[in-house]
């Protein structure tokens, strides 16, 4: 039983110079799902997220809630309801934690709801409240990842794109972040998660796609993929 279609990517192609990074990828995300794209380094995962956020050019079509995103500028895509947590977190090290969060509310006008969202983010990540006057650059890797997720929540998007949230974090922190992602999902956000850490992401995902050298080679529910021998061999360490 599938829910409402939220995001639909159709026959996506991305090229950098002569390199074809994404070759005819199609997938979709339904409202309320956690969908994961897994694959090795250079498989084209990050490129896909960047096209959705409108920061790199592509061929093919991406539609969100039935509207084509092609002609829409990157900074207004956020307003439509898609927020991205970029690879490497993308924290502004020269802004305070509070400013980092505030920046994400750039397009928003609803003052009361913004105030409530700050509280929600701080409730989710008490560490951020403690450090809200500190510069982003002074945070540890785990705190930065929390801030990056918190920031995406501040833009009040319905769909969160996460680019390798586990990168460079110790196992305990990875587990914390993934638990929080589940919590956020339960609170109503749809999540598209790109990961190398297939173990964790397939665990929480309702569906997954496996990317290899720019193509989708496998798809299925999180459980199915975890049981798939090919996935086991390549991503879960045999």
């Amino acid at each position, binding site marked *: 039983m599938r829910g409402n279609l939220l995001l639909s990517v159709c026959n996506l192609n991305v090229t950098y110079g002569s390199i074809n990074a994404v070759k005819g990828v199609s997938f979709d995300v339904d409202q309320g799902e956690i969908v994961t794209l897994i694959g090795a380094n250079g498989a084209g995962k990050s490129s896909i997220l960047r096209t959705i956020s409108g920061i790199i050019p592509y061929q093919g079509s991406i539609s969100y809630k039935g509207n084509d995103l092609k002609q829409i500028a990157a900074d207004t895509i956020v307003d439509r309801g898609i927020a991205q947590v970029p690879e490497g977190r993308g924290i502004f090290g020269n802004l305070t934690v509070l400013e980092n969060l505030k920046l994400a509310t750039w397009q928003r006008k609803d003052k009361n709801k913004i105030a409530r969202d700050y509280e929600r983010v701080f409730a989710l990540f008490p560490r951020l409240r403690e450090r809200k006057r500190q510069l982003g650059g002074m945070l*540890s890797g785990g705190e930065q990842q929390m801030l990056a997720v918190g920031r995406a929540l501040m833009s009040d998007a319905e769909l969160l794109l996460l680019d390798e949230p586990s990168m460079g974090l110790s196992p305990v922190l990875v587990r914390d972040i993934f638990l929080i992602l589940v919590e956020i999902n339960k609170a109503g956000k749809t999540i598209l998660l790109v990961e190398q850490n297939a173990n964790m992401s397939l665990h929480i995902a309702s569906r997954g796609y496996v990317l290899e050298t720019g193509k989708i080679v496998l798809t299925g529910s999180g459980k199915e993929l975890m049981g798939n021998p090919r996935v086991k061999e390549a991503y879960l360490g045999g």
Partner: protein
Amino acid sequence: MPLLEIRNLTHRFEGLCAVSDFNFTLASNELVGIIGPNGAGKTTVFNLITGVYRATEGSIYFTGNELVGRTPHQITKLGIARTFQNIRLFKELTVLDNVRIARYGQAIYSPMEALLHIGRYNAEEKRITDHAMELLSIFKLDDAANERSKNLPYGLQRKLEIARALATDPQLLLLDEPAAGMNPNEIKQLMEFIGWIRKTFQVTIILIEHQMRLVMGICERLMVLDFGATIAEGLPAQIQNNVKVMEAYLGKELVK
């Protein structure tokens, strides 16, 4: 005499202790891993050994020579080479030139001979180029010799970086997270590759990694760093069952 001996090594950045009281002895032909969570000071140790940073306290002896106070190129010439966590090739230069640059310390001719292309220039250049091509062909990179290194695929760039390090004729090779960005399958291949390098080039290797799978598989001995201090050392099997290490990796609450 040990190949490398580090005594009471301490390094502070603006008051922050990145490495504190680090002691380490390495014999020839060992393969030792340094592991630890992010920000534990592993790369700093490499930077101190290779002279990128100057240690605040302590000393490093390599084949009897004190390294603290020497510049990176002097240390490289003594026989230590390294790779980088995030690949640092000379991107716009050809694969061949990347390797030939690493022979800088081995070439013997004067600036004047270089300016006029006279004297020892020709013979030395031939020697350098032949050596570089030889090395590239061992790594099966010789067909790409004229390619700009930025155009190589990721895996080959990692390989080239190791070839470039070996071109300096090291006795000691420092590998900084060679498995970064690799999937389990590729890591398996990398493990074989490292073993092969060790045999073929007769080098001693120190390896930084936080992929347990890799270090447990090939290292003979492990050091575990956390917050700049050594919290454990020993055989891989011992480390695996060490409570302190579990804590550092998995968090205190989880272990208890």
